[in-house]
Every structure is written in structure tokens, then in C-alpha cells.
């Protein structure tokens, strides 16, 4: 067997407690993030078995899925949501887990606050009962979403049992065009692979486009790995990574930092290591993207027309059903289609760079009359930066309001629901039927495309509104 290892091999293999022949690996988990929706039944399981959390110090709880994004200082009005939040707080207290609940200064979306406070580290294994846990792979961690039974396993034993996935490397070479963001790169990849093209694989992203990308951009890309079916995606840590994590609250300090750095610098794919699958794309060919259907694979360059059903891969009936739901026709141009809602936020695009991008377009313009816009920071830290950097002033002047942190309209568990039949240009991650509210119609796009839609009231190529120098 080759001694040349992939980044993924290095991290996975170093966490295997035990390998079961013709079965899964028992994988040790360094960081377990917990939120209110997928944890209560797991805690109930612990109670029924009368066991404790094995490593509360490796477990971090935050409330995000169910929380309101206005008036967070007031009691939560939805009794079911309030109950879930109360349960998480009680469970965290009972088992000695740190809890960043509603109103806590560190509260925010689990995949935004983890990196912000240095909980997310290179070479770590990170799980959470949420499929977008793949976000943390941006740091060279193995991070993936798990189900509630597995949440219970990790609480009980700090391990899960999973077969090792296959490996895939996706290289994107060259330089991105101006107006093309990490979100567009990810939507492009998914449009090429389809929503099942990476199922069974763990992906490493490599090439100039990712080397030149900021940590926030890398998080956006890794976040969307699950949307092509991949368990997760990761990027080898480099100076950009180390610079980002240094001196954050939970990162190692002093001698421990030096020791960790020695290890982290070994985290790359060895020259000649083999992948089960390898794909390469030219980054300069990617356009600002938009989706037109009901899964994230149904995306295309914003200036293109909706493909005809005889040219698509996969089932024609499902494709037609999808367009019917969206009330679009084959061959339609997306540019100029009127929209009703804009959502800036989520674990995909709720970070400060996303708000900077959005502000760069709306600056000096006005929100379109027909548009309802929900701008939801990913965390209190992002919210504070929006204010400190003067972005709030730009947004306010353009007729926008800023809401309080949470998952919000990405999955519409709280009151932020897009009404039936309405169109939303959304920076989130899923355009499934009803995802943003029963009957809602979602167009996934970057913060730039969302901003262009917000000020024009229709699908607009953001490059028409951009200053060259911003890109």
C-alpha cells in the first residue's frame, strides 16, 4: 500500500479508535457542536440509559435554527420553539456543556460561531446534527453532519461509527472573473456534478482559486459540499488559515500553538497520493450563478437560459415537475424575472465579507419597492462588525434593515417565511420546494446577485452595477 496519503487520509486515519472488519470505523470526535433542533431526543436517550456526556469540554451548544431574528430580548412567542430552546439550555446545564443561547454575546449560527471563536481547528474531527457542518472543512478539518442517533453516540462516547468514505479531489485552476464569488464557484461545481455526484465521497478542494480564497470564502465552498451529496469537503490549511485562527479565544496559545502548528503544517495531500476520483475545472469560465429549479444542482450562469429537458441528465419528469413548481419554462431567460424577497444570511453567506459584498452594490442605491429584504447576520460578532465598519449606515440609507442573528429564512423554522408562490433570491443553500416557507420559490445566488436583485426588484447581473475596482 502506498505511504503517500491524502489530506483526508491523514486526518481520518489518526482518529480511528478501532476498525471493524467489513464494518465501520469507530472514529474519535474532537469537537461536537449541538443545536436545539437535533439534540433533544439524543439527550433523552442519555437519560433513558442513565449515562453522562463523556466529554462535555469538547461539546459546544448554541441556539440558532429556531430563534426569532427580531426582538430577541423578548420571550420567544412560539411555544414549541420556546420549549426546544429551554430544553437545550436545561440539557447543557445538566451535562456541563457550554451554551451560547439567545441573548448570549457569542450566540449565532453554529457554523459561523465555531470558526469565529477558534473552536474549529485544522486536523480536527468535527460533527454536528446539521448537514452544513461541512463548513468547518475550510480549515482542513474533517467535518460532517450526523443524525440524532449519532448525536447521542457522540454525547455518550465521543465517537461515531462510519465506514471511511471514498476520496475525490476537485481542482479549480486559474483566476475568477470579477463579480464571481466563492458562492458562484460552489454553485458551479454542484451544477456540474448534480446533487448526487459526490455521494459516498469526501472532497478535497485544490488549485489556485482556493489558495487565493479568504477563509470566509473557503467556508462558503465547503459549506455547500453536502449539496452535491458529499459527506464533506476540505481545504489544506495554509498561511491564510493559520493567520485566521491565531489568537482566537479557543485556539491553542504559546507552546501549545507551536506544537499544534508543527502538526498542522503536515496536513496536505502528499505528492502522488491517489484519489478515487479527480476533477478539474477552469475557474475563469465561471460566471455569477443562479438556480432556477428545486435542487441546488439546477443552477447556471446568470446570463444563460433555462435548459431544455431533452439536454439534461436525469429524469425528465422530475425536471418538469421542478420547473412547474417554480412556474418557469424551459428556455426562459432568468435576467429580468421579477422577484419578491431577498435573503442575505445563513451559514453559507452570513459572514462579514458577504455583508461587505452586498453593501458594495446597494451603496448609493435604494431598495426596490416590491422587495422585502431580510438581512440576517450569522452571529453577534458579524452584527458588531457590520456596525463598526459603517455597513449598517450604507444599508439603512439604502432602505434596508438589519435583523438579529440566526438561521432565519434559510429553513424558515421561525417566522421568517417566504409566502406561497413568491420568489426569493437567497444567499442560503437550498432551493427545495417549500424550504423557505410552504409554497415558496427560491433562487440561490451570491450576495452580489442578491444585492443586485434587491435594488432592481428583478434578477439582474450584478456586474452591471459594480465598480470595477471592487472585484
Amino acid at each position, binding site marked *: 500500500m502506498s505511504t503517500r496519503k491524502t489530506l483526508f487520509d491523514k486526518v481520518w486515519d489518526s482518529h480511528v479508535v478501532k476498525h471493524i472488519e467489513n464494518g465501520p470505523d469507530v472514529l474519535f470526535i474532537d469537537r461536537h457542536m449541538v443545536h436545539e433542533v437535533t439534540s433533544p431526543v439524543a439527550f433523552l436517550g442519555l437519560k433513558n440509559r442513565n449515562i453522562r456526556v463523556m466529554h462535555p469540554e469538547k461539546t459546544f451548544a448554541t441556539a440558532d435554527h429556531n430563534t426569532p431574528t427580531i426582538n430577541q430580548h423578548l420571550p420567544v412567542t412560539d411555544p414549541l420553539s420556546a420549549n426546544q430552546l429551554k430544553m437545550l439550555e436545561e440539557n447543557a446545564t445538566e451535562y456541563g456543556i457550554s451554551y451560547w443561547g439567545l441573548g448570549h454575546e457569542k450566540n449565532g449560527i453554529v457554523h459561523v460561531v465555531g470558526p469565529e471563536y477558534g473552536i474549529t481547528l485544522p486536523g480536527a474531527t468535527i460533527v454536528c446534527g446539521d448537514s452544513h457542518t461541512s463548513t468547518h472543512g475550510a480549515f482542513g478539518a474533517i467535518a460532517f453532519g450526523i443524525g440524532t442517533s449519532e448525536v447521542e453516540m457522540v454525547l455518550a*462516547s465521543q465517537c461515531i461509527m462510519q465506514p471511511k468514505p471514498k476520496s475525490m479531489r476537485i481542482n479549480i485552476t486559474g483566476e475568477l472573473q470579477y463579480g464571481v464569488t466563492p458562492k458562484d464557484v460552489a454553485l458551479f461545481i454542484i451544477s456540474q456534478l448534480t446533487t448526487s455526484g459526490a455521494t459516498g465521497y469526501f472532497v478535497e478542494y485544490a488549485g489556485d482559486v482556493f489558495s487565493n480564497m479568504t477563509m470566509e470564502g473557503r467556508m462558503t465552498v465547503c459549506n455547500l459540499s453536502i449539496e452535491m451529496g458529499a459527506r464533506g469537503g476540505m481545504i489544506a490549511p495554509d498561511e491564510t488559515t493559520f493567520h485566521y485562527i491565531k489568537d482566537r479565544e479557543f485556539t491553542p496559545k504559546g507552546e501549545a500553538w507551536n506544537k499544534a502548528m508543527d502538526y498542522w503544517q503536515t496536513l496536505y495531500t502528499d505528492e502522488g497520493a491517489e484519489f478515487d476520483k479527480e476533477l478539474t475545472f477552469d475557474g475563469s469560465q465561471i460566471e455569477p450563478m443562479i438556480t432556477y429549479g428545486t435542487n441546488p444542482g439546477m443552477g447556471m450562469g446568470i446570463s444563460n437560459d433555462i435548459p431544455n429537458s431533452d439536454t439534461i441528465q436525469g429524469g425528465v419528469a422530475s425536471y418538469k415537475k421542478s420547473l412547474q413548481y417554480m412556474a418557469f419554462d424551459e428556455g426562459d431567460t432568468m435576467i429580468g424575472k421579477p422577484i419578491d424577497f431577498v435573503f442575505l444570511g445563513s451559514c453559507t453567506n452570513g459572514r462579514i465579507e458577504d455583508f461587505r459584498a452586498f453593501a458594495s452594490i446597494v451603496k448609493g442605491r435604494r431598495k426596490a419597492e416590491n422587495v422585502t429584504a431580510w438581512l440576517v447576520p450569522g452571529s453577534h460578532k458579524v452584527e458588531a462588525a457590520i456596525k463598526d465598519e459603517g455597513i449598517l449606515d450604507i444599508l439603512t440609507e439604502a432602505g434596508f434593515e438589519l435583523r438579529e442573528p440566526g438561521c432565519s429564512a434559510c429553513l424558515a423554522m421561525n417566522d421568517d417565511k417566504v409566502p406561497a408562490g413568491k420568489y426569493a433570491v437567497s444567499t442560503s443553500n437550498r432551493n427545495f420546494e417549500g424550504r423557505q416557507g410552504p409554497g415558496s420559490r427560491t433562487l440561490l445566488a451570491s450576495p452580489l446577485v442578491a444585492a443586485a436583485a434587491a435594488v432592481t426588484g428583478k434578477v439582474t447581473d450584478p456586474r452591471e452595477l459594480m465598480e470595477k475596482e471592487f472585484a
Partner: protein
Amino acid sequence: MAYDKFNILKTSAVPLPIENVDTDQIIPARFLKATERKGFGDNLFRDWRYNSDDSPKQDFILNNPIYSGKILVGGKNFGSGSSREHAAWAIYDYGFRCVVSSFFADIFRNNCLNIGVLPVQVSPEFLDRIFQSIEADPNTLFEVNLPDQSITILSTGEQELFDINDYKKENLLNGFDDIDYLLNIKEDIREFAKSRPL
């Protein structure tokens, strides 16, 4: 939690010949607010099954009394999207014990295995044959045989074998769960944890 043992299932099946059925369709997010694993079956495929006034949509398969059984047959890439185990719970709670497709999303497949619902992956051709045989006769019986790892269309005898790893097979046959296993190797885990100071 421990679950029902799975051995041989002989039953009719409910066909859902749609690709990329995501877990948001299986159970929409607004029904994830419970703190106990109860009653999720009522909201299985909620927005495909009911109108906004809660009246049943007559053309949806679960509302058509001619289809029944403990097997749900879905199109390619079944269970994609959100990791919510509630999707598997809803399928179980409704009364299904087996889901058949030509391709499953990873997390959904794991979630099913962890609660005792058997995901059976068949070839696209065999999946078509299953859909055709149900279309010809909604009462068509199927046998899902876990010990033999086979699925058979009983009316025609057509059969295909499916994969499952030995460990999970053993668990399903006996109703064992992973936590019992993990608790039994707790000392190994404790020892391992010492090498992971992070």
C-alpha cells in the same frame, strides 16, 4: 435506542417515482420542533400530502387507498439534503420498515440504519421493474430478505441482491444499536482520548 429486529419482510409497496426526494419534502422544517420522537408519521410528506387548509391532496400516493405496505419505493438520490433524522423517524412512524431506491443520500441511509429502517439499493433497471410491477398490480408482494440480502418481486420471481456491511446487518437482525457497542469499548476510547489533547 434499541429497535425492532429486521429479518424477512413480505409486503406490498408504495411507489414514489420521483428523483432527488429531499428530506425537506419527507418532513418540512416546521415540524421539527418536537422534543420527543413521537408522531412524526402524521407529517410525512406533509406538503405533498396535504393542501394548506390541511385537506388531503387526492392525487398524492399516500392518499390513494389502493397503495399500501411496509416498503416505500423512491426514485434516484432519495433522502438528499438536510441531516434531520426526523425524516427517517417519519417514515418509520408512518409504518414503513424498508425504503428501496437506486441511490440513497449518505446521511439519510445512515439515519435509517440507525433506527431499524432498511435502505435497499437496487439497480436502476430493477427499480424500474418494481415500479412497473406495482403499476400493473398495486397488491404485488415483495420479499426483502435481510439474511440473504435479496429483494424479490414475488409475482415474477425476479430478484436482486443488495449490499449491507456485516456489522450493520448483524445489528438489524438482532435489534442491537451502536451505542451499546460504543459503551462496551469505552476503555479503549478513554485510552485513545489521551492522545487527542485538543
